């Protein structure tokens, strides 16, 4: 039984890859491999995209390294193309797992003409209408009240969709967070709030963020169940998130899940010196030892279905090729035209913007 408000994070697999609970039926070795493949894809995507910064082909990168189990487990617990998502900037692995094409993700990060968002937002601020992923805002916690609204609409319209809203531990301090969570509870909206607690908000540790013992217990004050899961255990994440999604879908109202995980890399490219400035190497080492991918490798080993070196190398190679092809294709699409800057401000371009566009056109023609 999956229970809310547990003292410790719910686990299925130990750090050493041992089973702590019986595996539900669906976890065949093939399925577990599939989970592993999704996580590896996310990890390798990160690894291959970070060099874009050094090459000056993007201006910002927010790694998800270490958080793959939380993000993959969550994505697979919901129905892609059916449920709705209000994500935050570190969630590219969720999008990838939902099936958003690599090219679309890479194009947004590079701001190329192939970016469906037309090169307007900074990197890692994706939108994928066809996957019901609402556009990401960097203003922390500003997605929480709109997520509640989407869920209220789903309830009003009588759909069986749910809304998933993700955020970091830092976001739980913002007023918008409290306002959105409270309204969701009162309106019984079908929304799953997921805190990807990676324990740091830039240089501010979670103990300086909240005096609350955990994040998930805050749910109690608002009148909704709060679940606590080991965010580096993909099976526990998938089980807990699936359970919670089912509950919400069956009309139980909103719920909150806290996935305890760790941001292994820097917050962004701006703080590559994290270990020097605000956290210890020992802490990072402790958490890298709990790596979500290695845990599954060990589990499969213990189950007698190890992933061979060749198999792993082939998976890594495959993702590498996929990312390289996406980068090439995105680059080949060129830079978005300057006049895109003046589109989509309103449904119909008002005269003052047409005037401003004409002004820049004349300027660009004179420069050409």
């Amino acid at each position, binding site marked *: 039984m999956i229970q809310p408000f547990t003292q410790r994070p719910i686990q299925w697999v130990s750090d050493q890859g041992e089973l702590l609970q019986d595996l539900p039926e669906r976890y065949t070795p093939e399925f577990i491999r599939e989970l592993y493949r999704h996580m590896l894809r996310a990890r390798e995507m990160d690894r291959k995209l970070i060099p874009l910064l050094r090459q000056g082909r993007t*201006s*910002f990168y927010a790694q998800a390294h270490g958080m793959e189990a939380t993000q993959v487990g969550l994505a697979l617990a919901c129905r892609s193309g059916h449920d709705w998502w209000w994500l935050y900037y570190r969630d590219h692995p969720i999008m990838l797992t939902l099936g958003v094409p690599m090219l679309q993700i890479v194009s947004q990060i590079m*701001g190329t003409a192939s970016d469906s968002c037309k*090169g*307007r*937002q*900074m990197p890692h*601020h994706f939108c994928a209408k066809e996957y019901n992923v609402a556009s990401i*805002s*960097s*203003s*922390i*916690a*500003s997605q929480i009240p709109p997520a509640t609204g989407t869920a209220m609409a789903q309830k009003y319209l009588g759909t069986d969709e749910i809304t998933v809203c993700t955020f970091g531990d*830092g*976001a739980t*301090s*913002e*007023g*918008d967070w409290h306002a959105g969570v409270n309204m969701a509870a009162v309106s019984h909206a079908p929304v799953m709030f997921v805190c990807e607690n990676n324990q740091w*908000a*830039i*240089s*501010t540790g979670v103990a*300086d*963020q*909240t005096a609350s013992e955990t994040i998930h217990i805050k749910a109690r004050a608002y009148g909704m169940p709060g679940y606590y899961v080991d965010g580096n255990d993909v099976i526990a994440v998938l089980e807990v998130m699936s359970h919670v999604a089912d509950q919400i879908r069956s009309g139980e109202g909103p719920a909150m899940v806290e996935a305890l995980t760790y941001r292994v890399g820097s917050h962004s490219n*701006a*703080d590559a010196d994290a270990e020097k*400035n*605000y956290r210890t190497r020992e802490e990072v080492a402790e958490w890298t030892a709990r790596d979500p991918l290695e845990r599954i490798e060990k589990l499969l080993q213990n189950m007698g279905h190890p992933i061979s070196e060749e198999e792993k190398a082939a998976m890594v190679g495959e993702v590498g090729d996929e990312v390289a092809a996406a980068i090439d294709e995105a680059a080949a699409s060129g*830079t*978005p035209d*300057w006049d*895109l*800057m*003046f589109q989509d*401000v309103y449904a119909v371009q008002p005269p*003052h*913007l047409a005037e*401003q566009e004409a002004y*820049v056109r004349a*300027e*660009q023609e004179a*420069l050409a």
Partner: protein
Amino acid sequence: MSLTVERPQAELGETKTMNLIGAITEALDEELARDKRVLVFGEDVGPRGGVFMATAGLTEKHGLDRVFNTPLSEAAIVGAAVGMAIRGLRPVAEIQFADYMGPSFDQILSQAAKVRYRSGGQNTAPMVIRTPSGGGVKGGHHHSQSPEAYYTHMAGVQVVMPSTPYDAKGLLKAAIRGEDPVIYFEPKRLYRAAKGELPLADYTVPIGKAAVRREGTDLSIIGYGGVMPDAISAAEALAEAGVQAEVIDLRSLMPWDKEAVLNSVAKTGRAVLVSEAPRTSNFMGEVAYSIQEELFDQLLAPVIQVAGFDTPYPYVQDKIYLPSGNRIANACVRVLNY
């Protein structure tokens, strides 16, 4: 084009060269040392030293009870500053990016700006909100906006924006020592690009006074913040063609130095107003209005505004969005040929 803005002022005494962010750090450091009531706080400003390193080393030097991290809540940061100020402290709150002042808007509008007036002058909120603003750093709209006009519209707060290291330090000290809430915008693209001479001695730059960056007789270029190096480079380009532009840096928007602007435009008869904020309801609209109201019959040409556009700040077209030296010079040519 050099981004270094020279100060024409003479008597600086003994000086040293600093960049704009260094001047901010130094102002905070000196004010913390001078006055025990000064506290510096915000997201990541403590041990790490802020995302731009404006507070680097200050926790180490002044202690964690005076320079500290807060939870990620702009409303709490600004609201707490108001309460501290009323209780006798001199809080300096950092909002990590001006784009994130949104959550604190109500605390500024309803509390900071109103405390003195609504209490009949019994309570006051002498506090400073520091925040990096403006574009030019490939930050997309959430890290590039210029929201200063919103804050000039709420009576009760002062609004300043330096463009030189000298002013950055002097205005910040004046803001900390002043008796009112001050919103102190920092043009982030000049943090390291703007270098200049700073006196070794203590000094302040009075809030509400503009600076003449360059004297001229043919037209007045008026700007503030991140656009100033481009305004000056435009003036230099015009000088090569024999046109002498006067360049005025407003430095303060609320209150603003109407007298300095009117004196200049009365002399030159032409004004080009430069700001990177979106054009509509831009603060420069107020400046243009004042010029036409006071100097209607002395103007030799219409007042022209060079501004950002009425679109959200774009990521890829970062550079096209901003008023360039070229764009400013073209506007000058337009008023000269009117």
